[in-house]
Each structure stands twice: as C-alpha cells, then as structure tokens.
C-alpha cells in the first residue's frame, strides 16, 4: 500500500463535510481547535477595542468621552471578555488543536463533546456581546461583587447577562477540561509513558484538572446570585441570614486559580518552544513537572489574598500571606530551568524566541509586584488602585499573551503549511512591547499616588495627568502592534507560499506530519520510545507515512485510534470515533434556549428546553454503543485489541470520573457556603429548621441500599431496582422541601432548597442512566452484559447516593443539634 493511497483513504474517512456545512457538522479536533482560536481572537479584538475606549476616556482629566454608565459597562466587559472569552478559550483552542498531535493520537477523547463545548462558547459569548451592543451589558466590574451586582445595586438585566452568560460559557470550559484530562491520560501513542509525555501535555493536564476544581465555585456563586436576583432567595442579603462576603470567597476560590489556569498553558508553550529555539533538550523535565503540579495545587490556597481588606483576623491574613509567597518558589524553579536551558543551548533569535524574551522581562516584574501585594500591609495600601491594575496586566499580558504570541508564530507554519509573507512580526513585536511597558509601567506609580481603579474620570492636580496621557498614547502604540500582527497572520494564511514541514527542527510528534495537517493526523500511530521522538528518530515521519505504526490499515473504513495504559503507555483498546454530525450544535442551541429563558424571565421556556436537552442527551448516550461486540480486532504490528465498547473502563467511565470531580467540587463549595453561613454570617439561626421524621430516614436508607446494591447486581433487574432506589431518595428530598416551603424567608431555607434540589437532580440523573441500561436490555442490545455502561451508571448512582445523604443530612443537622 503506497503512502499516497493510505492518505487518500484516510482523508475520505476522516474528512469534515465540504463547504459551509462542514463548519456546523465537524467534530474533528483540528477544525475545532482552529475555530476556537479564531473566535477567541475575535473576542480579543472586541476586548482590545474596549481597552482603547478606557484609555481614551482616562487620557485627560475630567474627560467626557464616555459617561459613567457606559464606562462601567466598558471596563466590566473588558475584564470579562479577556478572562472568560479570550484567555481560557485560547488555551482550549491550542489544547484541542495540539494535544492529539503532540500525543500521537488521531483525535481527542470525545469529539462530539468538543463540538458541543465550542458551540456553547460561541452562543454564550454572543449573548454577552449582544448585551454590549444594546447598551445593557454588565456594569458591576468583572468580580460582580454583591450588593453592587444584586437587584439593590443593579436592578436591570445587566448583571443577569454576566451570571447566565458566564455559566453558559463555563459549560465549554468544563467540557474541554474533561476532554483534555481523559485525552492526556489515555489517548497517547503506544510506548509514550507518562514520563515520556511532551511537557505541554503535563501543563495541559494540570490546567484541565484546575479548571475542573476551580470553575465550580464560580458556577455555584453565579447560580446563587442569579437565584437571589430572580427569585429573591437571600443568599447574599445580611438582613435575611445571607452574607455578601460569601460571594467573594466563592469568586476568588475560582479567581486565583484562574490566574494559574491562564499562566500554566503559557508556561507549557514556553517549555515546548524554548528548547527548540535553544536547540537543546529541556533541562530538568522532572523539576518542571513538579513545579507545574505544585503551582496547580498551591494556587488553591491563596484565594483570601484578594480579600485582605475585608476585615479578616490577622492570623487568617498571615496564613494566606504565607501561602501567597509560597507560589513564588515553583514559579522561580521554572524560570531558572528555562534560563538554564537557554544557557545550555545555542538560542536562535527567531520571532517566537523574541516573544519569549519579552515574556521573561515582563513576567518577572509582574511576579515581583505579586510578591509585594502578598504582603498584607503593602496590599492594604494599594488595594483597588492602579498598582493592582498594572500588576495584573504585567502578569496576564506578560505571562499569557506574550507566550501565546510566541506559540502563534511557532505553530503558524503548522496551522497553515505556509511561510510568513511580509515579515511584519519583528516590527509588531517592538510596537507591542514598547507600547505595553509605556502603558502599564507608569500606572504602578499612579496607583502609589492613590489613583483608584474603575474611576471614570479624575480631577487635575493630583500628579496623575502625565502618567495617564503617556499610558493612553502607549496603549494605542500597542494596539497598532497588535493590528500589524493580525495583518501578518491573515496575509500568511491567505497568500503566502508553502513552507517546509518542520521549519524549526521541532522534537515533538506534531511536526511528524505534513502541514497543514490532514484530518486524521497520523497515517499510522507511531511507537514512541523517547521524550523527544523526532530528535531520537529523524526518520519517524516517513515511517508513520509508510504505515509502519499502528492502525495504518483502513480496511474497517471507520475512524479509529488507540488508547493506552495511563502510566506505561502500553496499548489497551481501540476507540471508534463518531462521524460528522450537526447534533452537538443543535444540542448547544437547545441548551442556549434554557439559558435564554432564564435571562428573559420566559420561564415557560426553561422546562421545555430542559426536556429537550435531556432527550437529546439520551439520544446521544443511546447511540454511543454498538448492538453487538466484535471481539479483538487487528491493529497492526501483530497486535489485536478489543474496542472500547467491550472494556470495563471505556472513555465514558473516565470522562464521568473527571466530570464527577468537578461536580464534587461544586457540591463541596455548596457545603462550604452553608458552613460559612452557619459559623460566620450574621442573623443566624433562622426562625425554624427542617426536621426529618424516622420514616423519612428509613425511606432514605432503603433508597440508598436499593440504589447501591442494584447497580452491583449486574443484570437488568438490578438496575431496575437502582431506579426504584433513586426514586425513593428523591421522594425523601421532596419531603424535606415540603418542610421548608418558602426559600425567600432566610438564607437557611434558600440553601436547603439548593442542597436538596441538587440531591434530587442527581437522583434523576442516576435514574435515567440505570433506566437506559434496563431499556438496552429490553431492546435486546448485547450491551446489557458489558461492564462499561454498568460501571458508569454505578459511578453516578454512588455519587448521587452519597451526596443526597450529605445534602439531606446537612439540611436537617442544625435542627437536630438545636
């Protein structure tokens, strides 16, 4: 079989639909990665224009360019867009595009989930942009602190756009995080053990787990605040037992890890690009992995350092001050390793390297001012001033945008298969870097001189005029630089000549394929035996093209890839991927109707959309498995493996495991909020507590036993028992709600509704999952006897049972104790 024949056959199997239809039906990670990046860049442009409006307004004292109302919307949306619609999606875009290529796989773990996440991002982001165009955008700052963002401070629909829009967009982040985690752990080339993984994959793994554990507190906070705004459930109203400070805790439980969620992918790109530019291997691979993991976990212990001025006792402040200084250590470890790698090699000053040098100069300044604000007395002086604005821009632009520009220029030949045309890059580089430092360096001084952030105008005579004028002029210089980059990239994409396959001499598998890459990535999946596979075996691309790896035979005429053992990288089973479909887009549109119903208070639409989403999810799940197994199939190199449908730990089980990690964090955050009320919030205890009767406890125990044992029965009858068990648990939840009839009376009642509602919701999910297995048995699908689906249902049933007991217990515990 010739390489060309293989290429044609695989291209036919893996190709997206032709023409415009392909944009809506593609489930291919290369397409979706490019689409993520394109949309993220669009949002970056919108956010950049808003930044220009801010700087135009602040260029001179007493400016009347923007009124206060518009200014509030502009700075709120600038921060919101850059954090939620640009930074995270850029990571998702790079990860979606690159990971399978770096790992030696043909696609991500769940292609339809990638597409669903992408469309949720597009629809959710569009919702936010719509609010901006109509002048009803959120205007309470990107932290959305209540009571400024509650009905008291923001009675219009503005805050609802933020709360509902961001929650919608976060579906995309959670979906991508599940996708990335499972892909990195299971979808690698045979032989690629964890310690031979490309360093970018380590960073992506840590970042994805951080998203799974960092975003749920924000999603919870957004749901609680929206429930307060829409239904008057007093979560953040002190007079009714709530506490506005809880929002800050939930927001920063997300918000501080978010900084590292943004930085770590950039660090991953640096660790990938820098050794190639220095023409040497990365120094201290193990140290870098340890530093990435350490940063990922430590970043969850810092959230209170954003709340140093909220009246927390000194000892609490000192805890978080100490923890905040700790993160400097793993950050410094990485910096020294990168510098060491440069010293060891012979760096070439190509454009990606220039951007990396700009990163070093800028991020170190941002990091040092970060250590300064970790010290409590200093933070008290500069809190909410332009010093903080300057610090965060040094960290985010220096630590994320510059490395991502290095990544853009490094992988541009991969995206396009072309050389750059005008070579505008160096000019743009200097404009952006000089413009950036001109804008933000002096703003540190403005902050030290007392200039508050978020003010829409200022009076002359305070020493701020020259600083602000220089900052504004410099910001436009930076904007011209970004415009040049855009022109450079667009012209390169559209009009440039073809380039070589691996222009930088890269070491990773992404350069082992022709560029732009074919839809199937690898004509055959390589066997990997080194951390830098292309440097270890320069002939590898040719071997892959000749079909000397795995799955080089296309006789089964379907989209296939391999999964591997987590640690060793030994081949485990074959995964058959779905064909092109518009289903994910349709499902995200119906999901959008759910959120739109909430936003516009068209509550009749909400249950309809919910039923639509559930029906579509069931249809999705129903189609996941074949009716019959096919046993072991040959995968090449003399090896035969079974397909994912027939194993005990299919990708769906792994996906469920990590989705439940996010879900568990959500639930844990809810319990944290409840304990916070109980111990800290004023106006407790509430007028009355719910108390569950002995019959209620007995029914709960019976339900839990039926649910847990039923899923362990193995046969259809066992899962039918599990359905009965979940219904019994849900009935007990309904009884608890009956005992707390009005969730608007006190924060306790409102919290009980959320806790118990969460418990009931999960009984519904578990019932549906077990019901699907029963229905499969009735329909005569062989899948009834397969372990994978039963283990997934068991996972969700166990989780639902445990959380229901905890939720109901928490609801009635104060009553029992009093």
């Amino acid at each position, binding site marked *: 079989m010739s390489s060309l024949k293989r290429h044609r056959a695989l291209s036919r199997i893996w190709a997206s639909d032709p023409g415009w239809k392909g944009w809506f039906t593609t489930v291919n990670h290369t397409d979706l990665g490019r689409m993520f990046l394109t949309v993220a860049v669009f949002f970056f442009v919108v956010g950049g224009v808003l930044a220009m409006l801010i700087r135009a307004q602040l260029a001179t004292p007493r400016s009347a360019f923007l009124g206060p109302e518009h200014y509030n919307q502009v700075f709120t949306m600038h921060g919101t867009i850059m954090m939620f619609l640009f930074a995270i999606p850029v990571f998702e875009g790079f990860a979606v595009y690159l990971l399978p290529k770096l790992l030696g796989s043909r696609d991500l773990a769940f292609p339809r989930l990638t597409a669903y996440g992408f469309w949720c991002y597009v629809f959710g982001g569009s919702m936010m942009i719509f609010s901006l165009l109509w002048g009803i955008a959120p205007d309470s700052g990107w932290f959305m602190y209540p009571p400024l963002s509650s009905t008291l401070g923001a009675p219009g629909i503005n805050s609802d756009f933020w709360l509902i829009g961001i929650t919608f967009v976060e579906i995309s982040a959670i979906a991508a995080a599940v996708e990335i985690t499972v892909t990195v752990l299971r979808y690698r080339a045979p032989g690629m053990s*964890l310690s031979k993984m490309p360093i970018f994959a380590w960073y992506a793994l840590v970042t994805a787990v951080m998203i799974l554990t960092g975003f749920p507190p924000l999603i919870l906070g957004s749901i609680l605040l929206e429930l307060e705004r829409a239904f008057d459930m007093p979560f953040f109203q002190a007079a009714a037992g709530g506490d506005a400070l809880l929002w800050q805790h939930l927001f920063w439980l997300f918000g501080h890890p978010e900084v590292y969620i943004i930085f770590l992918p950039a660090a991953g790109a640096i660790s990938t690009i820098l050794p190639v530019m220095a023409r040497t291997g990365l120094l201290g691979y*193990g140290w870098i992995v340890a530093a990435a*993991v350490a940063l990922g976990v*430590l970043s969850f212990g810092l959230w209170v350092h954003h709340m140093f001025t909220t009246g927390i006792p000194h000892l609490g402040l000192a*805890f978080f001050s*100490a923890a905040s200084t700790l993160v400097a250590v793993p950050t410094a470890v990485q910096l020294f390793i990168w510098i060491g790698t440069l010293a060891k090699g012979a760096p070439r000053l190509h454009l990606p390297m220039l951007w990396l040098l700009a990163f070093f100069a800028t991020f170190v300044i941002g990091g040092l001012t970060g250590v300064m604000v970790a010290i409590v007395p200093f933070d008290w002086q500069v809190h909410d001033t332009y010093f903080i604005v300057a610090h965060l821009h040094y960290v985010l632009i220096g630590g994320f945008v510059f490395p991502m520009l290095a990544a853009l220029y490094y992988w541009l030949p991969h995206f396009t298969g072309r050389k750059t045309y005008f070579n505008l890059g160096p000019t743009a580089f200097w404009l952006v870097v000089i413009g950036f430092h001109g804008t933000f360096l002096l703003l540190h001084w403005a902050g030290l001189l007392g200039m508050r952030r978020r003010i829409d105008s200022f009076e002359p005579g305070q020493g701020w005029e020259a600083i602000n004028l220089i900052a504004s002029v410099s910001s436009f210089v930076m904007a011209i630089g970004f415009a040049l980059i855009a022109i450079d990239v667009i012209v390169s994409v559209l009009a440039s000549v073809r380039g070589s396959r691996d222009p930088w001499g890269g070491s990773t598998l992404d350069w082992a394929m022709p560029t732009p890459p074919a839809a199937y990535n690898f004509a055959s999946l390589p066997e990997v035996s080194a951390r830098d596979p292309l440097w270890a075996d320069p002939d590898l691309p040719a071997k892959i093209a000749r079909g000397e790896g795995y799955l080089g035979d296309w006789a089964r005429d379907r989209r296939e890839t391999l999964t591997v053992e987590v640690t060793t990288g030994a081949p485990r089973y074959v995964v058959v991927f779905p064909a092109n479909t518009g289903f994910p887009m349709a499902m995200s549109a119906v999901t959008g109707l759910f959120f739109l119903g909430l936003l516009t208070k068209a509550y009749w639409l909400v249950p309809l959309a919910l039923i639509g989403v559930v029906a579509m999810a069931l249809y999705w799940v129903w189609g996941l498995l074949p009716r019959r197994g096919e046993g072991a199939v040959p995968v090449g190199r003399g090896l035969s493996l079974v397909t994912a449908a027939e194993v005990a730990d299919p990708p769906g089980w792994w996906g469920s495991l990590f989705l439940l990690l996010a879900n568990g964090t959500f639930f844990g955050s809810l319990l944290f909020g409840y304990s916070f009320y109980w*111990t800290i919030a004023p106006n407790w205890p509430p007028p009355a507590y719910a108390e569950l009767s002995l019959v209620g406890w007995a029914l709960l125990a019976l339900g839990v036993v039926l649910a847990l044992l039923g899923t362990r029965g193995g046969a259809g009858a066992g899962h039918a028992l599990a359905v009965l068990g979940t219904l019994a648990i849900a009935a007990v939840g309904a009884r608890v709600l009956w005992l707390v009839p009005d969730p608007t009376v006190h924060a306790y009642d409102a919290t009980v509704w959320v806790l118990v509602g969460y418990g009931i919701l999960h009984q519904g999910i578990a019932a549906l999952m077990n019901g699907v297995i029963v229905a499969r048995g009735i329909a005569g699908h062989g899948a009834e006897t397969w372990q994978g689906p039963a283990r997934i249902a068991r996972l969700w049933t166990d989780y639902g049972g445990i959380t229901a007991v905890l939720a109901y217990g928490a609801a009635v515990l104060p009553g029992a104790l009093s």
Partner: protein
Amino acid sequence: MRAVLSLSLPLTLWLAGFSGLYALHGLFCSSRWVEGSAVLWQRPVLIGVGLLLIGAQLILAVALQSKRWRAEDRTLRRVSFLLSLAAAGSTVWILLPLVLVTGCR
C-alpha cells in the same frame, strides 16, 4: 493511576490541611478566642494540628517511596519525592503565622 495519585496526594494533603487549619481558626474566632484571656487552648490546638499535618506529610512521603506504593517509573518517583518535600516544607511555612501572629484581631 498509582503514579498520578503519588503526584497529586502530597500537595492535596497540604491543601486539605491548610483549609482545615483556616476553618478551625475561623471557628475559634467565631466562638470565644480572645487574646490575653484565660482561655489559651486554641493556639496550642492549632499548632498541634499543624504538627500532626507535618507528621502526616512525612509518613506520606515515606509511604510514596516504599516498594508497595511507589511509582514504577523513576522520573515519576523523583517528581513524587520532590512534591512530598515541597508539601512538607509548605506546611512548615504556613505554620509560622500560628506561632508569630495574634489570633482574632
């Protein structure tokens, strides 16, 4: 999966201990911890919990290097050891405020 756990456990234990200490401190402050009063058991309790945490970190570090639990891959074993050290060091570092700083003011 054992390798992944050996990487994530040490600092996760640190995070759990850190959050637990902070929560305990919050509970003490919301009850009756008044600096200079006769009730002086809160700080020793916090320090005791902190020392227990350090002990747990060290036991975990040893366990993760034992034949039974250690990762088979040498690089991962080294990373796990580094993270165990980092977690133990981090616990010592965050205990300093317990000794040096006033409680609930």
